[in-house]
C-alpha cells in the first residue's frame, strides 16, 4: 500500500540538488504514487536531477531574496499543502530543513517526526524509524495527526538511485509575507575553504578526538588523511574546544559518514560520535583506554598512545 502524494522539501544550489534531497526522493517514490518537491531556492537548477529521481513537479518559491529560508518557506508551504493536500512532507535533517519543518509545525499545528533513518506505509499511514540510545535501539513511530505527516530524515539513511525520468515540471509559488517574524536578513554568506575529498563522500575518513591532547596534534590526522587520500574529521569534543571547524564534525550533530574505512584516533566513542560513523564498512580505532566504547564497534582496535602509533603509522606509509 502506498500514499497518494509525498511532498519533498528540496535543497540544493546552482549546481543541482543535494545528495540528501536525492536520497529522500528515491525513498519517497517507493512510498507514494506521486512525488512532488517544494524548493525554497534553485528550483530550476534542481529540476533535471529531481525528475531523474522520480519527482514529477517542482514548486519553486519566488522571491526569497535575503530572507532566512525557514520562516519564508514555511509561510508559503502552509498554503501550498492546503492547496495540494500531500499525505506527507519529507525534510532532510539540515539547518534549513529543521527551521522550515519547525515553523510549518506551528502554522499547521501538527508534530514533526525527527531524526529518522527509515519510513514505511502501514495501514495507509506513515511509520518512521528513529535510532535511539546511540543507535543501540530503533523506535518505530506511527504519525497519528491529520495529513500531511511532517517527517525529517538523517543524511545517508537511503541510497540515491535515478529512476530514469525526465526533468520535473517547474511551477512557481508566490512568496507569502510572514510579517514581523520574517524581518531577519542575510547580509553576507561565507564558505569555509576546503581541500581534499569531501567528508560526506570520502571512501576513507581519518578522525581525531580529545585523546590527541592538544590542537597541534591534529596535524597528525591531516597528515595521515593526506597519505590515504582520505577526508579528515573530528569528534564534537575538539570542535567544541575550537581546535577544528564545525564542518569537520562527525556525529549526531555534524556529518553522518559511511566510508569504506573509518580511522578513529584518540576518540573514546561517545554516543554523539558513534551515531555519525557506525555505519562505516570498516572501523579502525586507536585509543589508550581499553574500556573506550569505540572498541565496541571497531573491526581493528589498537589499545595504545596515539602519539606513538600515529607517527609510526605515518612513517610506515611514507616508506612504502
Amino acid at each position, binding site marked *: 500500500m502506498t500514499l497518494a502524494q509525498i511532498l519533498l522539501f528540496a535543497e540544493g544550489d546552482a549546481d543541482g540538488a543535494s545528495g540528501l534531497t536525492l536520497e529522500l526522493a528515491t525513498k519517497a517514490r517507493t512510498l507514494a504514487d506521486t512525488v512532488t518537491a517544494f524548493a525554497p531556492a534553485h528550483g530550476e537548477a534542481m529540476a533535471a536531477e529531481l525528475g531523474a529521481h522520480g519527482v514529477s513537479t517542482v514548486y519553486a518559491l519566488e522571491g526569497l531574496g535575503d530572507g532566512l529560508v525557514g520562516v519564508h518557506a514555511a509561510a508559503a508551504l502552509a498554503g501550498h499543502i492546503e492547496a495540494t493536500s500531500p499525505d506527507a512532507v519529507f525534510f532532510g535533517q539540515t539547518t534549513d530543513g529543521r527551521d522550515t519543518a519547525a515553523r510549518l509545525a506551528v502554522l499547521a*499545528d501538527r508534530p514533526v517526526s525527527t531524526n529518522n533513518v527509515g519510513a514505511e506505509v502501514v495501514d495507509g499511514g506513515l511509520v518512521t524509524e528513529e535510532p535511539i540510545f546511540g543507535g543501540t535501539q530503533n523506535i518505530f513511530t506511527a504519525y497519528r495527526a491529520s495529513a500531511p505527516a511532517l517527517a525529517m530524515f538523517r543524511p545517508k539513511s537511503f541510497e540515491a538511485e535515478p529512476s530514469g525520468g525526465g526533468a520535473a515540471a517547474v511551477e512557481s509559488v508566490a512568496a507569502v509575507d510572514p510579517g514581523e517574524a520574517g524581518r531577519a536578513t542575510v547580509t553576507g554568506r561565507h564558505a569555509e575553504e576546503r581541500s581534499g575529498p569531501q567528508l560526506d563522500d570520502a571512501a576513507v575518513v581519518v578522525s581525531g578526538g580529545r585523546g590527541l591532547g592538544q590542537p597541534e596534534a591534529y596535524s597528525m590526522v591531516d597528515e595521515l588523511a593526506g597519505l590515504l587520500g582520505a577526508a579528515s574529521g573530528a569528534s564534537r569534543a575538539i570542535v567544541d574546544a575550537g581546535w577544528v571547524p564545525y564542518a569537520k564534525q562527525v556525529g549526531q550533530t555534524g556529518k553522518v559518514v559511511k566510508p569504506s574505512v573509518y580511522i578513529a584516533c584518540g576518540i573514546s566513542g561517545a554516543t554523539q560520535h558513534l551515531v555519525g560513523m557506525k555505519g562505516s564498512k570498516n572501523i579502525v580505532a586507536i585509543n589508550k583506554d581499553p574500556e573506550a566504547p569505540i572498541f565496541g564497534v571497531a573491526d581493528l582496535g589498537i589499545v595504545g598512545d596515539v602519539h606513538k602509533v600515529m607517527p609510526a603509522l605515518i612513517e610506515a606509509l611514507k616508506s612504502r
Partner: protein
Amino acid sequence: MKVVVCVKQIPDPAIPGELVPETGTLNRDDKLILDESDSYGVEMALQLAEAAGGGQVSLVSMAPRSETSGLRTALAMGADDAVLISDDALAGSDALGTAKVLGAAISELEADLVLAGVESSDGYTGTVPEMIAGVMGLPSITFAKQIEISDGVASVQRQTEAGYDQVECALPAVVSVTAGVVEPRYPSFKGIMAAKKKPVDSKDLAALGIDAAAVGVAGARQETVEVTDAPEREAGEIITDEGDAHANIVEFLTELKVI
C-alpha cells in the same frame, strides 16, 4: 536588556537511558541536571548582558516534579531568576507541545532576546527554538556561533552546511546557540550559595492558559508501535600496542586495498 534563556533539565547522560514502556518516551523519573547544551545559552546570555552594561537574565524551564537542580546550576552561573513550568499533564510532550508551553511562559516576560541551545542532548530534535519563535510570532536565527547586540539589532553568524551566514535582525528575536561557542563558567561557591535564594516562579498549565489536550502524550499525536534492538557490529580484533601495532593497521588497510 532583558535576556530569557530556555533551559532543559535532563536525565544524567552518563547513566544509560530507558524508555517508559507505555508511551515510548524517555524515562525522566530520576534526578535531572542542566543539559550541557544549554550551558552555552546561559553563558552567552550572561556575556551579552555584561556587554550591554547590565541587564536581566531570566531562565525558563519545563520539567517534571518541579525539578530545580538544573535551574540552580544555571542560577549559580549568574542568571537572575527563573520560571519553572511543571504539570503532570505535560509528561510525554513533544517538541511542539514544549514550544507552546515555553512560548506562553516567555510571552509574559517581555524579553528583548530569547536564547536557547540548538538542540537538547536527550531529544535532539533541534526544532524547539524555531517553534518557540513561531508560537510567539518572532523572528529567529538558529545555529548561531557568534552574537553581537548593538542599538537593538542582533548581528549573528549562523552556521550553514558550507560555512556561515551573517544575519541581522532587529530585536526582539529568538536565537539558538550551537555548543562550544563560548566557554561556560563554573559556578563559584558564592554563586552556588546565592543561587539558593534566587526566585523561581513555579507555574502549572492552568496559569499559562494552555489546554492539557494540546500537550503531553495526547498532544504529541504520535504512537510508538515498536522498539527493536539494532543489529550489533561483530566484535573485531583488539591489539595492545607494544611498539609495532601500526603494522597491523598497514596490513588491515592493505587487505582492504586502501593502500
